[in-house]
């Protein structure tokens, strides 16, 4: 944990396209931003779910991919020097003396006058296999990520999956674990070929056991896993002893801690007004897919519009004594200076 509190004007929760464009609109009115995102790069769903897919409804761009749109937005907001905190999720938000204090699960603490929630469909979290009773093993025998390798020392580890996470942790945990078994539904892998090759090498040396199949049931007691039932590729089932299970089935979107921030919610969406896009809490705004209002459309372009209007009110909170003069980037010398084009 860090005792250093980062102070800024606005914290934007979520670095998807709308969060990024919010930096632009806030930047034009001299408001500085920090962004927090659980992913390891900007773009949100655009880069996580469809980096190569064409988007056809961004005004002025006949067709643009999720990755390209993200790259262009990053270029567009460059003049404003926003700071990013990736691989982190904002866990808590509290109001204190006219400002907000946010803490992330990585120990970053931010203090700001305004909070903008641009969290889209929620934060990307690991998928939990729908196996009966899996909850009772989570944190003791079932893990969706590896925080401390030592926790797996001397234990019988079962890794499930065929992507980079499954392969990377197979390779990394094998020297630490008492035994390591990799279970996947087929003999093909999406992971980096080098990792796959290394894994098969370890299998050949007898250091890793590779099995084909899918987990259908968990066995154990008191949160301690003893074995899993596996349905093999031939349909026959068998038991596989293990103390630790690491299932890697990709990510899904969950609202997450936003639900606990004391905001009014409507079916996991945050109701806002359509003049300022402010939530039920003064100073906390919600823009993009995560908000709701009469007529709401979950479009990137709607999020852009919401960000522009939000910025006007955010300016008022950051500079209560300054009157905001509406200006166009085409003609305003001061805006052009901020953009670095004059």
């Amino acid at each position, binding site marked *: 944990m860090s005792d250093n509190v980062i102070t800024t004007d606005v914290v934007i929760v979520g670095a998807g396209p709308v969060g990024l464009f919010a930096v632009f609109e806030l930047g034009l009115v001299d408001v500085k931003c920090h962004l927090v995102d659980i992913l*390891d790069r900007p773009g949100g769903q655009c*880069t996580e779910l*469809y980096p190569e897919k064409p988007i056809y409804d961004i005004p002025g761009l006949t067709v643009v991919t999720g990755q390209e749109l993200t790259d262009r937005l990053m270029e567009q907001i460059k003049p404003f020097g926003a700071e990013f905190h990736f691989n982190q999720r904002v866990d808590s938000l509290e109001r204190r003396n006219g400002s907000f204090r946010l803490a992330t699960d990585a120990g970053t603490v931010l203090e700001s006058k305004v909070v903008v929630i641009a969290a889209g469909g929620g934060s990307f979290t690991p998928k939990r296999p729908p196996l009966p009773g899996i909850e009772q093993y989570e944190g003791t025998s079932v893990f969706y*990520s590896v*925080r401390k390798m030592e926790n797996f020392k001397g234990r019988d580890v079962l890794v499930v999956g065929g992507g*980079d996470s499954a392969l990377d942790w197979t390779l990394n945990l094998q020297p630490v674990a008492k035994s390591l078994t990799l279970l996947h539904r087929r003999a093909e892998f999406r992971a980096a070929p080098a990792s796959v090759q290394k894994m098969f090498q370890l299998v050949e040396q007898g250091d890793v056991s590779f099995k084909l199949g899918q987990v259908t049931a968990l066995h154990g007691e008191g949160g301690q896993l003893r074995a899993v039932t596996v349905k093999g590729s031939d349909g026959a089932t068998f038991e596989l002893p293990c103390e630790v299970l690491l299932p890697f089935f990709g990510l*899904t979107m969950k609202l997450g801690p936003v639900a606990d921030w004391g905001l009014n919610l409507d079916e996991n969406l945050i109701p806002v007004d359509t003049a300022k896009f402010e939530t039920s809490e003064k100073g906390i705004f919600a823009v993009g897919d995560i908000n709701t209002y009469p007529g709401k459309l979950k*479009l990137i372009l709607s999020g852009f519009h919401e960000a522009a209007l939000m910025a006007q009110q955010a300016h008022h909170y950051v500079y209560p004594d300054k009157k905001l003069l509406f200006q166009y980037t085409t003609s305003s010398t001061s805006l052009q200076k901020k953009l670095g084009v004059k």
Partner: protein
Amino acid sequence: MRKSRVRPRGKITTKARRFDAAKALESQIQLSYRARAASGGSFSRLHLSGASQPPPGPRDRKTPKPANVMARITFIQNDGTERVVEADPGMTVMETAVKNGIAGIAAECGGACACATCHVYVDEAWRETTGAPEQMEEDMLDFAFDVRPSSRLSCQIKVTEALDGLVVRIPDKQF
């Protein structure tokens, strides 16, 4: 220190797709996720099937088809409840399900073959007509639960007239 995450070196879901980008563009539905989300569209008429006999296969369909409808799809939930909906050719089975409010088709990524939450089991009689998954879809099925030989991602099955009468089953849980 940077924390260890689900993806120690990141980008699982993107790699396969970058690799297959050209193919993806070619085979994908023509509308973007967000454009479709916006379109709303009109709802097809719903039919509640009360028949207890097994749904018909590709060749033994008995009920006549209205002239303006190209394909009807039966969705069977894990608890056995069935719904038959009309599908427009060119749409995907996932889009048809979402448009008709079929439960159990989450379609989190909106049809980008990037999330495996529109997983269905194609009825045996229809497996040949719907065909086998392409590489990208097969890769993405790794992220689905209880994958069987009849597993498909419904966002990758395009409705054609040949699929009139298609029967798909929805898994108990998509995750």
